Structure formats: structure tokens, C-alpha cells
């Protein structure tokens, strides 16, 4: 893992909302493969693109992007029960 890696939940948000990569790319005005590279963590977006992605999904930026890996869904619930 490189130090400047930015983690994101784009694929999760996209699948949850039933949006294809091509639709998201068209809405953001980027190449559809760019969405794939973002989801794979092979490209870190500019601040402008990151803000537009968060705006598209209607969530705060920190919901979509993080400098630390996102916890797995349900892991916090499991932790609280233990």
C-alpha cells in the first residue's frame, strides 16, 4: 500500500444505487474507464472530481473518500456486541 493511497466507496455507492459505470462517467463528464480505475484505487481524483462524485451521490465527501481503509460493513456492530 502506498502512502498516498486514497480509499473510496464509489463502487459500493454505485451498485447500491443501481448506477452503471458508463452512467456515472457520463454524469461526471469523464471516461468510463476512469470510474473503473477510481474504484480499483489505481487513480486518485482531483479535489474537483472528488467533490463532484460526492455531490452526485448526495453524501459528504468523507463518506466516499478516506485516507484509511473503510471498515467492512457490519464490522462495527460485531465489535459492539463482543
Amino acid at each position, binding site marked *: 500500500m502506498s502512502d498516498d493511497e486514497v480509499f473510496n466507496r464509489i463502487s459500493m455507492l454505485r451498485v447500491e444505487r443501481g448506477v452503471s459505470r458508463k452512467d456515472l462517467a457520463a454524469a461526471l463528464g469523464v*471516461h468510463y474507464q*476512469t*470510474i473503473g480505475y477510481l474504484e480499483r484505487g489505481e487513480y486518485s481524483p482531483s479535489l474537483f*472530481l472528488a467533490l463532484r462524485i460526492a455531490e452526485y451521490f448526495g453524501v459528504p465527501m468523507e463518506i466516499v473518500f478516506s485516507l484509511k481503509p473503510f471498515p467492512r460493513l457490519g464490522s462495527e456492530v460485531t465489535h459492539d456486541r463482543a
Partner: protein
Amino acid sequence: MTELDQNRIERARRGVPLIWYGTRRGRQSTVVLGAAALATLWISSIVCWFLAPSSVAMWTTFALTGAGIIVYAWVFSVLIVASDGVVGMAETKLDERQLAERRHVYALAHRGTAMMLLAATVVVYFLPSGDDHVMRVPSAAIALFLMAAVTTHLILPHLIAGWRIPDPPVDDEG
């Protein structure tokens, strides 16, 4: 040189089998072919340097350059499809990732051509000249040398882009 557009890339895509541009091995094999095509120009200039003017130099140059052009026409088609216009398309038609990739490719190509010119300078500097310090070089060799240098400058970004491109993400629409 005319700028590429998406329609031209799509037309090229229809004529190129996926195995050439869809896999890293295919793309890198294509780049090796392109480098070989480029080498024909450099070899032609060396042949002319030593053998021109002669029919051997002339026919060798025609044969090598012709083969190089035919091979590179194919290589160019594969690389513009593989890079999806990262090199060649107008900047206004690229997104920020593609622009960043283009800048990186051009920076590497600039370093490559700088090294090539440096190597050429060193070679010419150490070539033996006569007692009068005058070097006699066939004009065909100079013309081909310059042609090879300009061609290298023009196509090196394509070759570097083709070599670097990672496999595209799997399409999620089936």
C-alpha cells in the same frame, strides 16, 4: 498530423482483434513491433552512411523503410485503440486521468528523445574524420538520420503509452 477523434478510434477498434489491445502481453508485443519498425529507419541511415551512394544502399533503404511503414501502420491502429486517445486526441476531449497519463507519457518520451540525441551526438563526435577534420557524409544518410530522429520524437509517446497502460477495468454491464 490530424488529431484523433472518438469516431476514428472506434473505427480502428473494429479492425483490431481484442487480443492485441485488450491484454498487457498483446500491447507490449505491439510496442516491440513498433520499436522494430522504428529501428528500420535508424538501420537505413547507418546503411546509407557506409554504402551510399549505391544501389545496395538505395534498395536496402526502400525495403526497410517500406516494411517499417507497413508494420507501424498496424502498430499505430492497435496503440490508439489501446490508449483510447490518450496520445493524439485533443486535450479538451480527455478527462483529468487521461490528461495526467498524457503528461506522464510525454515527460518520459521527452527524456527518451533527449537521451537519443545525446547518444547521437556522442556517436558523431567520436566518428573518425580525416586529417583535415572534415567528415564526408552521404546526404542520404543525413536525410535518413534526421527522418529517424523526427519519427522517434513523434512516435515514442505512442510506444510508451502502449507499454504503460494497465488492463482496463472489467465492464460491469455484461
